[in-house]
């Protein structure tokens, strides 16, 4: 390296200096300026790329919301505009009142169904996986490792492979058109992953804490509620998120189980139902999708830190 000023700016193009400098001092200056320009150009191009990616990623969501607020003549206009020229809540009105082509009731009914299924799944999956994760993280027993590997494999069994047997089983149990059937299936489907996630959390809690409490005479219940539970609570948040997403988004089981039982439809089934029936009523369809999507987006934004940490731990570590 000749010019010491060049250190750290090796990305600078070697040739193509525009003006021939007169003195060594001004040459140093021009090199410094050039280095700064390159740095700025790089920063601008990086930020430009970031902006482009972010806008491209946001566009479909923007388009959904924008369409939802457009009156129908604007939706089918030959020159679509980005924003509605005459924004209207008419599409939302139709969806909320249930007075929409192909509609089967006000959207709140399906919100209620989805909420009932999702919350029950979160509660069941959390309780069952907490118990199981304590077992695999704290006890040594026969087939423990086999069990953990089995859970990893079971987690990957696709719903499509099981749906035939599940349909026939739940039909004979008379649980097809009911929310209870969905809750049972979703809770079990979430378990392999939630057990793994919680196991990773329990395993990080030092065993000495519990041992010290045990020596001081605390009962097993007390140790669990006073020591283990508060420490594993962040893990429970992560598993709850996973169970929530599993249940709120699930499609194939709900599609197959609910069939014609329209009053038990969950939101995804409701949205696809009148997507299929409503002809080309894109305004109300986008309004319904928006209402279905926005809550989960807000939820993701609230829990974003835990989501990234927890789900990555769950996915990469098992």
């Amino acid at each position, binding site marked *: 390296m000749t010019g010491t000023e060049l250190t750290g700016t090796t990305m600078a193009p070697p040739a193509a200096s525009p003006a021939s400098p007169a003195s060594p001092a001004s040459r140093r200056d021009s090199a410094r300026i050039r280095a700064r320009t390159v740095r700025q150009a790089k920063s601008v191009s990086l930020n430009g790329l970031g902006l482009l*990616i972010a806008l491209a990623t946001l566009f479909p969501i923007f388009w959904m919301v924008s369409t939802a607020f457009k009156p129908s003549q604007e939706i089918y206009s030959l020159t679509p505009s980005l924003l509605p020229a005459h924004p209207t809540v008419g599409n939302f009105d139709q969806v909320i009142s249930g007075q929409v082509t192909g509609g089967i009731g006000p959207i709140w009914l399906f919100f209620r169904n989805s909420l009932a299924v999702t919350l029950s799944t979160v509660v069941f999956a959390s309780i069952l996986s907490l118990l199981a994760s304590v077992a695999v993280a704290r006890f040594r027993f026969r087939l423990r490792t086999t069990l953990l590997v089995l859970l*990893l*494999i079971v987690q*990957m069994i696709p719903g499509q492979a*099981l*749906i*035939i047997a599940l349909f026939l089983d739940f039909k004979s149990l008379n649980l097809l058109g009911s929310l209870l059937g969905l809750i049972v299936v979703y809770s*079990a489907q979430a378990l392999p992953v939630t057990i793994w996630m919680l196991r990773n959390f329990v395993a990080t809690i030092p065993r000495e804490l519990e041992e010290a409490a045990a020596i001081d005479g605390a009962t097993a219940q007390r140790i669990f509620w006073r020591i283990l539970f508060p420490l594993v609570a962040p893990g429970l948040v992560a598993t709850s998120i996973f169970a929530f997403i599993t249940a709120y988004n699930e499609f194939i089981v709900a599609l197959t189980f609910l069939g014609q039982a329209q009053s038990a439809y969950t939101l995804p089934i409701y949205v696809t139902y009148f997507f299929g029936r409503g002809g080309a009523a894109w305004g109300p369809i986008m309004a319904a999708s928006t209402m279905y999507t926005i809550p989960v987006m807000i939820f993701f934004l609230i829990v974003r830190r835990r989501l990234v940490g927890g789900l990555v731990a769950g996915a990469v570590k*098992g």
Partner: protein
Amino acid sequence: MAQSIRSDHAPRSVPRLSGPGTARERLGTFVRRHKLAPYLLLAPALIGIALVLLWPLAQVAIYSFQNYGLAQITGVLPAQWVGFANFSTTFTDPEFWLSLRNSLLFAIVAVPLTLLVGTIVGLLLNRLGKKMSIFVSTAALLAWATPPVSASVLFYWMFNPDGGIVDWALARMPHWLVGGTDWAGYNWATNGPVQAYTMIAILVVWQAFPFVAVTLLAGLKTIPAELTEAARVDGASPWRVFRRITFPLLKPIYLVLLLLSVIWDFNIFTQSYIIISLGNQNEYNLSMYIYDKAFGFPPSYGLGGALALIFALILLVVTVGYVRASIRQGALT
């Protein structure tokens, strides 16, 4: 072994046994002496998994050798064993091979595309300033949060021949860029598997790249900055830095992401069911073919069972790879 276990526990259980003991205490002693605690804790979860995930899989295997259909489900006729008839019907059906081909080709295109976009965004997030990085990751988070059903309906609308924004934009672009097709009113969903799966691939990449980017970012943060900095000072190009330093260090994460993506993309049902819809046989993927065979008319749970079994076996191969990669990464420690 048994000796040592007993002697371990003798001091703790003896004082409790010496008292008269309520039923509850005696139960506790019984659990402790036989080391039942882990099994009791596991029982509820394992019963759920066994009944809802494992037993149905076994049933599917049984159905695949039976002629289980409409007459059987209504109880008119009992199910009969038919040997490998369902499998030979499947393997001689050209639609099966077509749907398998569609599934495979889709995964071959969508998986590398997801990993590529995810890598670019992950590397970018690692280099960007704080504000911009939050903006980009928030956008990615929102795409990730969109439920598959919403996303599918939304992309169907964007690619719709009547009023869809994609056809409108393509029709206004110069021909040298977008080819000579008349894009106005172009139907992506029904014009053939290539068109339909192009649309689904864009949708799937849009939904899946955030997970890849965020996972890689977590990995990138563990790489000491001095390492890549030093290489860059020594004049290595960004591509070389990635290939020689970043990628080798992130290889285990890449392996897991690759296998997960293969499993997910080979599996897709929600997106293809909504966008392609039942009836377009030449655009079926394996999932839709199975669903149609099992629940179409007349329903054939035996044929569907055979297909589901084949499907599960194909996925098992990938899953074993995924499990091995996870274990090698220290999942079991």
